């Protein structure tokens, strides 16, 4: 196995490429992940964006990106990537631009687009073996519209459209497996709070060809209801409780890149967020907490 390029924090790029002063909330976990991603991918990129919080990164006439950007719609960012990739390939093939002018095409969408409305267009892009990166920042709800539940919302979470005593009664969709079932070049989960794991996966993805898709957990102080300064802790807890498994799919195999040991109880993660407050007050909902724990335990049983 190849040595990871980034072994220590000091190996990571020290200067931040993505500009500051955007309209994102303080403590946005999605933006933290994007910083890490952009530092590795660099400016020879064109980001193809779908409707969501990150759409407000580039507001006319300013942008924090040093490279290029194209906003499309909520459903069709992967199709936008198809058009840009094909356009660039045609220009290269017909020698109308030089290879130095080429760009890495990167789709950037939220979970609402990735898990739901944009899934058909992602599926199509993978099936056509499109050479592109897909970054989904998963804040587990339709954040930009006020955090209603989406296909990525976890069981029990309170959202703007699941305020009942049991929170969201559905279950988070397994997008990693849905993507992997298409047998693309690469699929991975990442977390901004785990910068080394993130950097190595982006580096690996960058050097592959074909569809490469990554889901970043995006702790969201505004939608998950906690203080902005807790974002990194919450991201770390998501990994340490085993709620957010860090893994990758490559060459037909799934490998876990960081197996939490010992795994912290899920309460440690849940109790830090207002969206799960009804699990603890006025009285602990031990049944629901146990159900969530059991599901996490069940997952890891299948792994180790």
């Amino acid at each position, binding site marked *: 196995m190849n040595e990871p390029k980034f072994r220590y924090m000091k190996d990571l790029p020290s200067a931040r490429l993505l500009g500051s002063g955007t309209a994102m909330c303080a403590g946005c976990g999605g933006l933290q992940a994007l910083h890490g991603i952009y530092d590795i991918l660099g*400016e*020879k990129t*064109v980001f*193809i964006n779908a409707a969501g919080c990150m*759409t*407000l990164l*580039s*507001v*006319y*006439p300013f*942008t924090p*990106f*040093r*490279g*290029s*950007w*194209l*906003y*499309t*719609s909520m*459903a*069709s960012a*992967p*199709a*936008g*990537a*198809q*058009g*840009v990739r*094909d*356009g*660039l*390939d*045609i*220009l290269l093939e*017909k020698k*109308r*631009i030089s290879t*130095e*002018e*080429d*760009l890495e095409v990167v789709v950037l969408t939220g979970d609402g687009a990735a898990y739901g409305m944009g899934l*058909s*267009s992602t*599926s*199509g892009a993978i*099936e*056509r073996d499109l050479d592109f990166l897909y970054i989904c920042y998963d804040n587990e709800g339709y954040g930009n519209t006020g955090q209603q539940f989406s296909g990525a919302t976890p069981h029990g979470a309170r959202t703007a459209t699941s305020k009942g005593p049991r929170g969201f009664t559905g279950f988070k969709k397994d997008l990693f497996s849905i993507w992997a079932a298409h047998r693309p070049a690469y699929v991975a989960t990442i977390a901004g709070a785990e910068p080394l794991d993130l950097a190595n996966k982006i580096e690996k993805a960058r050097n592959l060809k074909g569809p490469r898709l990554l889901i970043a957990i995006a702790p969201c102080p505004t939608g998950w209801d906690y203080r902005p300064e807790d974002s990194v802790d919450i991201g770390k807890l998501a990994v340490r409780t085993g709620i957010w498994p860090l893994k990758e799919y490559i060459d037909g195999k799934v490998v876990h890149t960081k197996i939490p040991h010992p795994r912290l109880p899920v309460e440690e993660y849940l109790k830090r967020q207002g969206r799960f407050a009804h699990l603890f007050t006025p009285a602990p909902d031990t049944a629901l907490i146990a159900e969530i724990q059991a599901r996490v335990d069940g997952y890891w049983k299948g792994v180790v």
Partner: protein
Amino acid sequence: MKRTLLTGNSAAAWGARLADVDYVPAFPITPQTEIIETIAEWIDGGRMRSRMVTLESEHSMITAAGAAAATGVRVFTATSSQGLLYGMEMLYTVAGWRVPFVLVNVSRGLSAPITLEPDHNDVLAARDSGFLQIHCATCQEVLDSIILAFRLAEDKRVRLPVIVNMDGFYLSFTREPVEIPDTGSVRQFLPPLDAGDISFRASAPISQATAVLGGSPYSYFRYESHMAATNGLAVYDEAAESFAGLFGRSYGTVEEYRMEGAEIVFVMVGSFATKAREAVDRLRGAGRPVGLLRPRLLRPFPGKALRKLLAGRKGVMVIDQNLSMGKGGVLHMELASALYGHPDAPPVLTSFIGGLGGRDITPEEFYEMVAVTEKAIKDGSTPPPRLLYTKRELDEVRKLQAIANVERRETGKGE
């Protein structure tokens, strides 16, 4: 000049081939499929140097079309009806990107009820999208209009995508003799795309289609698109003139037929205007001063040209092959707004809805429209819009309903 028998669909494919398009994002829908099948065959056979990609929907297809055009390649695509509406969000979006490309729409009535036959509610739903619109009545015109449309779309004063519209079945599947222009002359008329600053390049980073905050920058961009679309009138005239010089075929923004001394005038778009021509000939034969105008351009709207052509006439009969529920015909409203308040405008503007879902418009109906309009001129009052339908058709539908009811009762399914 040699002519070849071509369907409207193959004429459209020829238009794309002669325009030397780089990229063809596609998705099948009747009656458009023959266009993409023909292009696919040419590409496979090495006769066309384009890249074709079948997307998984028209929403994606139009996104990919706009995105590829934004890199600075020449793009052609085609759809119909439900497909155009499925991609509607992206029609508005890519027009706002100010990228030039050409989309052929093969008109087909919209669901529900679902049908395969033509009318114009599909393409008119895109009326306010920012796409310019050229409407065709013959297969030759389809081919020529695609070449014209690229020139119009790519002109620096315009830079908007263009829809070229033809009627499903009546043109798409009808063979007509078509002159296929030679590549050299087409290249002279339509040089390779000069994309200017429309590009994505490592050396020139750019953010396209960013969000705006507030009504002021939003209005700025919307007004810019409107002014660019309006520029299209002059750009179109220039292009049509140079086209006529090279190929000997003239396509004004409005086609005139027997307008000399015409006192009452039919106005309609698309291939059904051919039916109106025959009616006009017969009416003229009977000494009635009737003419016909067929706008080819609907966006930008050639209001000034229509005003001029209609000045001093006694009455206008607008035939709409579309229906805006609760209001009436779209073309009628558009024409009324272009004429109202102008001193020489015809005093009577009658409205008829016909040809929905490919329903025929018979010669008798054209005569009746003239009679209704003559009476309105005499009475000095305009009647409400008429929905063309005959007693016999109504009886037919009622009869079928009755048979179905009897059958349901007899088989006990209605119990």
